[in-house]
C-alpha cells in the first residue's frame, strides 16, 4: 500500500471540508476521485501535499506516518501535486518552471529529465523560453504536469487536469495520464469529468460533501446510476 488515508478531517475556516475520509492507493495504481464541486476533493489533495492543515486522521505514505510532516519534506519523499488551476509561475520561463520541479532533488542533473519532458510534451520545447503565463490553458496544464514529474515522484496527485480545456485538449491530457500509468506511475486523479476519469482508472471513489459515498472498481462505478444522479440530479 503506497498511500493510506484514515479518517481524515480538515477545515477551511469554519467550514468542515473533509469529514473523515478513508482512501488507499496501491503502488502502480491509477485511482480516480470523482464528485461534484465542493465535495472536498481538492481539499483532500491539498492535505496530502501538506499545504492544508489536518484536524484529525492520519496519512501514511509507504508505511511512514506523514500526517504532521511539512510540505517540503513530502516532496522529498516523492509526493508531487499538479494543483487545480495549474498554478504555474506565470512570469517565469517554461524552462525555469520545470527547473523548480527539481528543487528537492539535490545533485540531480535536470537536463536529461527536461529532454524527456520535451519529448512527452513537444509544445513545451518550442516555448521553453516563453513566460509560462503566456501559454494557453492546455499548454499550462502540460507544463504543470511536466513540472511535477521533474521531481521524479512516486505518487502523482492530479487535480482537475481537464478543467476549462477544449475537448481535443482534454483528450490529449487524458492520453498523457494513461501513458504515465503505463510507465508505472502511481496516480491519484481528481476529476469532475467523471466518466472520462473512471474510464482510464483502476479504481474510483465518489465524494459528496466531505465524505466518500462510494468506492469500487472503476468499471463498476461507471455503470452505477447513483454516480449519474450525483452529477445530474436525476
Amino acid at each position, binding site marked *: 500500500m503506497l498511500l493510506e488515508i484514515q479518517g481524515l478531517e480538515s477545515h477551511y*475556516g*469554519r*467550514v468542515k471540508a473533509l469529514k473523515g475520509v478513508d482512501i488507499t492507493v496501491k503502488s502502480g495504481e491509477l485511482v480516480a476521485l470523482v464528485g*461534484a*464541486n*465542493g465535495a472536498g476533493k481538492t481539499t483532500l489533495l491539498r492535505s496530502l501535499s501538506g499545504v492544508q492543515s489536518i484536524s484529525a486522521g492520519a496519512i501514511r505514505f509507504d508505511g511512514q506516518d506523514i500526517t504532521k510532516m511539512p510540505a517540503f519534506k513530502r516532496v522529498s519523499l516523492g509526493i508531487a501535486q499538479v494543483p487545480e488551476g495549474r498554478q504555474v509561475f506565470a512570469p517565469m520561463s517554461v524552462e525555469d518552471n520545470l527547473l523548480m520541479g527539481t528543487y528537492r532533488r539535490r545533485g540531480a542533473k535536470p537536463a536529461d529529465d527536461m529532454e524527456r519532458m520535451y519529448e512527452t510534451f513537444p509544445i513545451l520545447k518550442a516555448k521553453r523560453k516563453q513566460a509560462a503565463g*503566456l501559454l*494557453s*490553458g492546455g499548454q499550462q496544464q502540460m507544463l504543470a504536469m511536466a513540472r511535477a514529474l521533474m521531481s521524479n515522484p512516486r505518487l502523482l496527485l492530479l487535480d*482537475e487536469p*481537464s*478543467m*476549462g*480545456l*477544449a475537448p481535443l485538449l*482534454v483528450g490529449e491530457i487524458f492520453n498523457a495520464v494513461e501513458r504515465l500509468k503505463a510507465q508505472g506511475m502511481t496516480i491519484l486523479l481528481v476529476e*469532475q*469529468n*467523471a*466518466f*472520462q*476519469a473512471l*474510464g482510464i482508472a483502476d479504481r474510483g471513489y465518489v465524494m459528496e*460533501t466531505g465524505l466518500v459515498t462510494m468506492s469500487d472498481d472503476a468499471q463498476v462505478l*461507471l455503470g452505477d446510476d447513483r454516480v*449519474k444522479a450525483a*452529477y*445530474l*440530479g*436525476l
Partner: protein
Amino acid sequence: MSLLKVTNLTKSFGGVSAIRDLSFSIEAGTIHSIIGPNGAGKTTLFNLITGVYTPSSGSVRFNDREIGGVEPHKLAALGMNRTFQNLQIFHNMSAVENVMVGAHLHLQKGLLSSLLRLPSLARSEDQTRDHCWELMDFVGLAQYRDAEASAMSYGALKRLEIARALAAKPKLLLLDEPAAGLNDTETREVDEVIKRIAAQGITVVLVEHDMKMVMGISDHILVLDYGAKLAEGTPAEIRSNPDVIAAYLGNVG
C-alpha cells in the same frame, strides 16, 4: 419586455475568450439558472452582468438600459443585487448590521445627523433594524438576531448574504452558488428561501452546481460550455439533452 437582455456578449482575457458571443434573456418574475462544467465561464458571466468586469464587446441591458461596465454601486441603485460564491460578509460587524448595510441605499445618510445622532436618524435606525430582523427571519436566521457575523456558521452566512441583498429591495437578485458547501438539509432550506423570494415577484438568477436544486426550482436553464451557450430550456428539456449529458459526464472511454 425582458428584465435582462444579453446580446452577443464577449469577454476575453489576454486573447483568451472566457465568454464568446453569448445571447440570452431573462423574463421578469422567473427563476433562471445558469449551469455548466467548471471553467465554463459562469462566474465570468456573473461578473459581467454585475459590473465587476467590463465586456470586451456586446451588450448587457437591464430594464432596457445598457449596463455594461456600470459600477456595481450604481447597479444596486438600479435594482440589481447579488450574493457571492466566496462570501463577501462583513466579518467586523454583527449579523443584523450586515443586513442593515444592504439597506444603505434607502437610508438617511446626512453627516450631521449621523454625527449628532439626531432623533429622526435614531428613529430611522430603529425601523431599519426591525425591518432587517424581519428579513433575517424570512431567510431563516431568526436565532441569529443578536449574533456577530464572525460567530456564524457557513450555511447561515450564505443566507445572511441573501438577506443583505434583499434589504436593498432588488428587482433582480443574482445568487452565485447558493448551495455550495451546504449539506442536504441546508440546501433544502436555501431552496425554500429562493422560492419564497421569487413568490414576492423578485426575479432570481442563480449559478449552481447542485443539479437537484437547479432542476427542482428553475423555470428556465441556460447551459454554458467553453464560454458559449450549449443549451437553453426548461429543466425537462435540459435533462434529456445529450450534449448536456456529455459535457457533464465526459465521453465514456
